Structure formats: structure tokens, C-alpha cells
């Protein structure tokens, strides 16, 4: 529970809300280098995309959006896999969150994935305000030790700062009690297919109309080969720099290169020929069968229509 801060008798009274006073910026910095006692937070990209999308669709006049985070939690880490936004009204002195809505949505989501539970909430924006403390209290009732995540969609520092916090009590018990938000380390994790999806989405950054079509098969192989070629040429230029003395040789990198070269399998030419030929024969046979089947059903079609 929070109370209004008393007049400063203790010189190092911690601030109850983070504003941009120099004292608090020092605290931010201190928290960055302090050991984090909370769990590791693993986020899937779909959650962040959802948050950005709900920020873009916010009501007129709302400066930020809040919502619930769903996922799974175990002893040392918390995995955030889903989220939904919750309508809320925020003004100078009060905040109203539609809790019915939140409960309803959670029930609906549970029908699809029964293993996801409420593990915290998110808000867009850079600061943690007093209202956040209240909302955090509400979420503490829903989940044990909820996480609070902030996504800076206003791009205050030219980057989208994504941070996660866990709250803990602080202050002198009995007198001035408050809530402190300790930052947690964030890791982005992807399923394999998710990473492939995200790679495809990255390509929309290149085109001016922000659109991107899906490529055909051989073109994909060509682009993958192109990527490997790029990586190889980067490596080669680095090696040449080291050899000519422009760059200091790094032992660990040298070891990796050694590993790489040793991993290339040594096969005799005849073995490789035979492997290659048998594989090519398999593929050609399957192509022939597929073509034959297609011709067959086309023929069947024509015969029926006669």
C-alpha cells in the first residue's frame, strides 16, 4: 500500500515515482548495474508486435495503452507468449481500468491455450507513473509477483526501449512504505518458424511502400546462398586484414575458424559423385512420377466430360 511521502527527514528517501530529476536518473543508472534478483524474462516477438499495434489503434487523447501479459512462469524465468490490450482511462488524478473486460478476455484466451496464465501487464511509454503502481497492485491480485513491461513507443531516446520490472516493497515498515520497481534482464526467444517469419518481415524495411511479396522456391535458395556468400566474404576480408597486419589477431576467432575449416567433411571424389548421382536420380524419379500423375488426372477429367 502506498501513502503520501512525508517531508524529507531521511536524506536518502527514495522517490515513489520516477520522474526525470537527476537523483532518479542516478537511481536508474544504479539499477542498471545492480544485480537483478528477479526472474529472466523471455519475450516472443508476437507480443511486441501486438503491443505496437494496439498503441497505433489507441483512442483519441489517450497517451498510452495498457494490457495484460500471458505466458508461463517457472522458477528462474518467465516466458511471455501472448498479450491483449485492456481499455483504460487515465487523467491527472485518477485511473480507471476495465477489469471486467480483462477477465472476460482472459477466459476467452484460456479456451484456446489453457496453459497460458496471467503473468503481468504492459504499458507503452517511458516512465513508470503513480498510476502504474495502482495498476500493478491490481495485477498482483491476479498473479503472483507480476511483471511490468514498458515499451517506449514514443521513441524518446530514438529507440524502442523495452524494459521489464518486478516490484518489491521498500521503505521503513510502519512508516513510509513504498514500492520499488527493479529491472529484469530481457531475452528475445523465437520458435524456429517464428524466426523465419520475422526474417521475412524484416524485408519490408527495405521497400519504400513497406510491402513485400512472398518469393518463389528457387529464388529463396538463391537468396540463402547469397547470404552465405556475404558471410564468407566478410570472413575473408577479416582474415586478409589480420594477415596484412591491419587488425590485431584474436585467438578465439582463430579457434572458431579452425573449427570451421575442420568441419568440412573430407569425401573422395567417387563417393561424392555416387552420392550426388543417387540423390539426383531420386529427385528426378519423383518429379517424373508427379508429372505422370498430373497427366493422368487431367486425362481422366477429359474422358469423363466426353
Amino acid at each position, binding site marked *: 500500500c502506498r501513502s503520501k511521502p512525508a517531508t524529507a527527514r531521511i536524506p536518502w528517501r527514495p522517490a515513489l515515482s520516477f520522474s526525470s530529476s537527476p537523483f532518479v536518473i542516478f537511481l536508474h543508472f544504479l539499477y542498471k548495474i545492480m544485480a537483478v534478483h528477479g526472474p529472466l524474462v523471455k519475450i516472443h516477438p508476437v507480443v511486441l*508486435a501486438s503491443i505496437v499495434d494496439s498503441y497505433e489503434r489507441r483512442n483519441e487523447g489517450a497517451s498510452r495503452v495498457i494490457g495484460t501479459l500471458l505466458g508461463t512462469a517457472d522458477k528462474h524465468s518467465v516466458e511471455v507468449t*501472448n498479450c491483449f490490450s485492456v481499455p483504460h482511462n487515465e487523467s491527472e488524478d485518477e485511473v480507471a481500468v476495465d477489469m471486467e473486460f480483462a477477465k472476460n478476455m482472459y477466459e476467452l484466451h484460456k479456451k484456446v491455450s489453457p496453459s497460458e496464465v496471467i503473468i503481468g501487464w504492459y504499458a507503452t511509454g517511458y516512465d513508470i507513473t503513480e498510476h502504474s503502481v495502482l495498476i500493478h497492485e491490481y495485477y498482483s491480485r491476479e498473479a503472483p509477483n507480476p511483471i511490468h513491461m514498458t515499451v517506449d513507443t514514443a521513441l524518446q531516446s530514438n529507440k524502442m526501449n523495452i524494459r521489464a520490472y518486478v516490484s518489491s516493497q521498500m521503505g521503513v515498515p510502519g512508516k513510509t512504505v513504498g514500492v520499488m520497481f527493479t529491472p529484469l534482464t530481457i531475452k528475445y526467444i*523465437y520458435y524456429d518458424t517464428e524466426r523465419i517469419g520475422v526474417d521475412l*518481415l524484416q524485408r519490408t524495411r527495405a521497400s519504400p511502400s*513497406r510491402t513485400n*511479396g*512472398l518469393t518463389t522456391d528457387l529464388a529463396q535458395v538463391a537468396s540463402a546462398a547469397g547470404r552465405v556468400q556475404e558471410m564468407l566474404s566478410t570472413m575473408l576480408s577479416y582474415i586478409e586484414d589480420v594477415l596484412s597486419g591491419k587488425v590485431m589477431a584474436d585467438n578465439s576467432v582463430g579457434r572458431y575458424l579452425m573449427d570451421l575449416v575442420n568441419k568440412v567433411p573430407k569425401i573422395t571424389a567417387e563417393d561424392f559423385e555416387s552420392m550426388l548421382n543417387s*540423390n539426383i536420380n531420386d*529427385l528426378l524419379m519423383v518429379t517424373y512420377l508427379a508429372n505422370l500423375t498430373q497427366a493422368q488426372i487431367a486425362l481422366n*477429367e477429359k474422358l469423363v466430360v466426353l
Partner: protein
Amino acid sequence: MGSLKESAVSGSNPLDSPVKQIQIDGLVVLKIIKHYQEEGQGSEVVQGVLLGLVVEDRLEITNCFPFPQHTEDDVDFDEVQYQMEMMRSLRHVNIDHLHVGWYQSTYYGSFVSRALLDSQFSYQHAIEESVVLIYDPIKTAQGSLCLKAYRLTPKLMEICKEKDFSPEALKKACIGYEHMLEEVPIVIKNSHLINVLLLDLQEKSTVADKHELLNLSSSNHLEKSLQLLMDRVDGMSQEIVKYNTYCRNLTKQQQQKQQYLQRRQQENTQRQSRGEPPLPEEDINKMFKPPQAPPRMDTLLIAGQVNNYCQNIKAFTSQNLGKLFMAEALQGHSS
């Protein structure tokens, strides 16, 4: 699935397809991938609803939500109610709540089935521009996103409306298995803010590229595809046998009818020559009931499915041949 009578845009030219292109938000792609990854393992199919709006001749899909599976276990689960509740809630947070289609995952490309046809028909009947998005997770795991959008051709829509699947009706409409579903090209679009997010992710994530796309092994995938193809071809041959027996029966019956008529005529002339009254005309049709024509819809579906399998297999083999030739070139360099 409940068909909602929401007509977002009045259908323009009914002969031309009203939707020429599909524009999908990156968010929808990620959600579909996540839904399959978490809830659908093996050959189970996951489904969900697509939300968005229609802009000129483009269908924009801006959000989606998944459908829970295993509704047989929970008897008092109402699909329509779940949908209505979800859409009402999404309306509160300003997400487009117009139903524009549905998505489904597929196992090795097998999705041309009666169920899909029925669902898509009811969707397209209610909402003219709706599509079905087919997401192939196995092909995606091999290196690149495989997402396709399909609609029923207008010809097929008419036939489904009539519910007449006899051979004559299909012949009249000249529908081949290639004209059942038409594919609509897809384009992925991201807003500026999402692009900033992607930039951030790329800088922060330390996931190394795994290059599944350059994987040379193919036998596992080929085996499974060929297995499925064989099953369908078996089904196809059964249908063909059925149709052949029907044709044979029909011709036999025609012959019998002719013979009977001829005999009748002969007898009549004989009787006339003897001066007796001719035998009464009997209703031929009641005596020779024509055999039941087998419905051709299943055959059409199987043919469509076989075609789809073959195309997938050919795409896969062409990719692998390319990779093998690349490997050969590399080996040639080093040896």
C-alpha cells in the same frame, strides 16, 4: 462456423473476382505461426478467424484470433458465442472487427476437402470477399514462410449453391479440378512503428542463422509426400471404378430397354397379323429404373488434392536439385 451477414462492401462485378490482392499485417503472420506452434502438433489442424477490411480491390487483413480445438470434449461450448464475444471485446480496443475470412494450417499440403469447401462456401456466400489462408508449417520450417490465400471460383460457387453434384451438371458448367480454387497473391505490409521494432529486434537478438533452407536432406519429406499422394491416388482409382461401373450399368440398361422395345414391337406386329389386340403399352421407365449417378464432387476434390500434392512435390524437388548442383559446384572447386 456461424456465418455472419456483414456486408462490408457491396460486391462489384460478380463475374470477376472482387479481390485481386491480399495485404497482410506482419502481426497476423506472427500470430498464425504462434498458434500452430503452441496448439497444433503433428497432423492436427488449427483454425482461426481473420479480421480486417476491404479497400478497393484489396483485402487487408489486420488481425486474427484463434479458434479453440477439441470442441467435442466440451459440450456446452458454443462456437458462435465465442466468436461474438471475441469480436465484441476486440471492438472495444479499436481492432477491426469485420470478419473477412479464416485461416487453417495444413499437413504436407492436404487441405482440399469437403469440410474446407463447405466452410469457404458459407463464408463466401455471406461475405463476398472472404478468403481462406492456408499456412504450411512444415514447409515454413524448411526455410521460408509458406502462406497461401484461396477463394472458390464463381463457377464452383454456383454449383455449390445448386447442391447438384451429378456428372451432367458438372459437365454443363465445365469445371475441372484446376478451376475449383483460385489463388490470390499475398503481400505483407508493416507500419513504420513495427519497422522500428523489427530494427530493434535485429540489433538485440543474438540468434545465429540456422540456414535450414540450405539443408540437403530430402528423403524424409519426399517419403511422406509420396505416401499421401499414393493414398489419394488409391482413393481416386476407387472413384473411377465406381464411375465405370455406373457407365457400364447405364449402357447395359439402355441395351435392355432397346431389346425390350424391339421384342414388344415384334410381338405387336405378330399379334396384329393374327388379328389380336396389341399388348398395352407399359411404362418403360418404371421397369428399367436408371441407376443412380455417383456424385462427382468427391472425385473433383480428390483430383484437386492430387494436383496440389504433385505441385508441392515438384517445387520441393526443383529446390533440392538446385541445392545439389550448388554442392557439386563447391566440391568441384575444392577438389
